[in-house]
């Protein structure tokens, strides 16, 4: 509606007012002046109203323009956000997921800064990789290496590792930062990850052989738990989130010392995992820069994986062995599993209890444990006698204990060891056939 017609009524009022004045219908000068003043103010009021309406219309147009600009800006922001998301997803592949999340969630500052923290550090590399690379076409090598690193990274990710870096065929990861489940749990997660990697490489070796790779890859793994300096190192423009320190060097050195396909861990790591991981002593090594020798352990497997063997030889069989042997040699015979748990015994009430000597032998800390009459007198539940390991399929699966005066127990201990072992072998043969 045009403004003119919008105010037609007001215009008509003004017109009528003017007519009143012009026609001289108001005879009294006082009345005429008052009417004229009223008309002038009415005209002014109409002018103000018109101006306010124009301003209101202008503002409305401006608001619409701004709303349109805002809509376009929101579209642009949304497009930019998508671009950034795509870009950050690409960048994320260059960072460990934990490091990426802690930066993006604002928990971690992107600045040159570091802190001391107890971490479990892992190094692995492919045995004879340089030699392998010389013999392979680069396309095959790329495929092999990428498959290997992808598989290993997935296992590392599943175990919560922070992947520090790949150095060619070598992998460096650590546990305990930016997230930690506690030093013991971190160490256990790291060794469990190493076992999973070792097992997966064995599976991959079969497919690699089938794919025509003459010498499939085997790896060496070294693990150490100790204080490291963790943080951002480099320059303000280009930094790496990594760890440094003697513990890192020691883990690397353990990796160099490991057997082909083996996992070598330091005593510090062993101390945290020995309850859950079966390890055996692997001697001491000298490390450059360290005044003292490092005690090392070779990782065999998770205890729970060993139970497969044990389960085939059920407790009833072990109980029969104990009872028969006890009757033959006239002594108390018991069999211990992990952590020294008594799982069979010629004295039924001992079953379910834990034996300190058995725990030491099972953990690989000793190859024989002897308890004297004095030891037995001092410790409740302990009996004079010997405890010996039962090694089966290359693993320490049980211990057998003969409780008798030491001189007799020593003689019968070896016989009991052979007796149990031969029964286990026979049981396994029957199970597999």
């Amino acid at each position, binding site marked *: 509606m045009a403004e003119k017609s919008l105010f037609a009524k007001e215009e008509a009022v003004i017109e009528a007012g003017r007519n009143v004045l012009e026609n001289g219908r108001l005879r009294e000068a006082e009345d005429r002046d008052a009417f004229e003043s009223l008309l002038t103010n009415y005209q002014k009021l109409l002018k*103000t109203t018109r*101006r*306010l309406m124009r*301003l*209101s219309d*202008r*503002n409305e147009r*401006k608001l619409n323009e701004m709303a349109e600009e805002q809509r376009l800006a929101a579209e642009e922001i949304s497009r930019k956000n998508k671009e950034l998301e795509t870009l950050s997803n690409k960048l994320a592949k260059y960072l460990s997921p934990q490091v990426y999340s802690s930066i993006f969630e604002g928990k971690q500052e992107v600045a040159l800064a570091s802190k001391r923290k107890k971490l479990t550090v892992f190094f692995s590399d492919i045995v004879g990789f340089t030699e392998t690379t010389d013999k392979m076409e680069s396309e095959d090598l790329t495929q092999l290496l990428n498959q290997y690193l992808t598989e290993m990274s997935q296992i590392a990710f599943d175990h919560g590792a922070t992947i520090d870096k790949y150095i060619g065929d070598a992998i460096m990861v650590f546990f305990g930062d930016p997230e930690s489940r506690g030093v013991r749990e971190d160490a256990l997660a790291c060794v469990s990850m190493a076992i999973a990697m070792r097992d997966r490489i064995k599976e991959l070796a079969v497919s690699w052989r089938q794919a025509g790779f003459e010498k499939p890859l085997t790896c060496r793994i070294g693990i150490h738990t100790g204080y490291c300096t963790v943080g951002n190192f480099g320059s303000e423009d280009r930094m790496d989130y990594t760890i440094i320190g003697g513990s890192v060097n020691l883990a690397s050195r353990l990796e160099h010392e490991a057997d082909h396909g083996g996992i070598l861990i330091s005593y510090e790591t062993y101390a945290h995992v020995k309850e859950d991981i079966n390890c055996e002593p692997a001697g001491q090594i000298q490390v450059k820069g360290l005044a003292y020798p490092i005690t090392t352990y070779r990782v065999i497997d998770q205890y729970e994986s060993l139970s497969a063997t044990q389960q085939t030889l059920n407790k009833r069989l072990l109980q029969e062995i104990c009872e028969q042997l006890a009757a033959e040699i006239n002594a108390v015979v018991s069999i211990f599993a992990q952590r020294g748990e008594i799982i069979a015994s010629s004295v039924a009430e001992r079953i379910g209890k834990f034996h300190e000597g058995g725990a030491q032998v099972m953990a690989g800390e000793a190859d024989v444990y002897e308890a004297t009459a004095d030891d037995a007198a001092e410790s409740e539940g302990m009996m004079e006698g010997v405890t010996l390991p039962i090694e089966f399929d290359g693993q320490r699966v049980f211990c057998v204990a003969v409780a008798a005066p030491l001189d007799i127990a020593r003689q019968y201990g070896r016989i009991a060891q052979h007796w149990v072992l031969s029964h286990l072998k026979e049981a396994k043969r029957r199970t597999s056939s």
Partner: protein
Amino acid sequence: MEKLEIKATNRTPEVSFDFDNNHLKISGESYPEDVTEFYDPIFEALDEYLGNLGNSNCRFDFELIYFNSSSAKAIMMLMDKLDEAAEGGGAVEVYWYYDAEDDTMEELGEEFGEDLDHAKFHLEKMED
């Protein structure tokens, strides 16, 4: 007379009435939730000042970026008061500053200026 200073908010303009130096200024954006509540103290102070102006000089600067219809009515009242003071003998000068890229504010300045019969009106571009 004591200065009247009101700081700007995101809905109301800055008010700086330096009565002793006869320099009054209102700047920024004006779309208060309650226009009467905001402008009443301003009118009151201005009435007191202009009532005593006599033949003295007075300069009033409008430096507005945006205002709504209610504020426009308040501005017209300010203009009326200034024009009346000029009619009463005061040497009143009104400066209307507008952003060089804002045609609306320039046009509004022109319209408001036309209403002034006695005060001297200046339409000026804002300096960056």
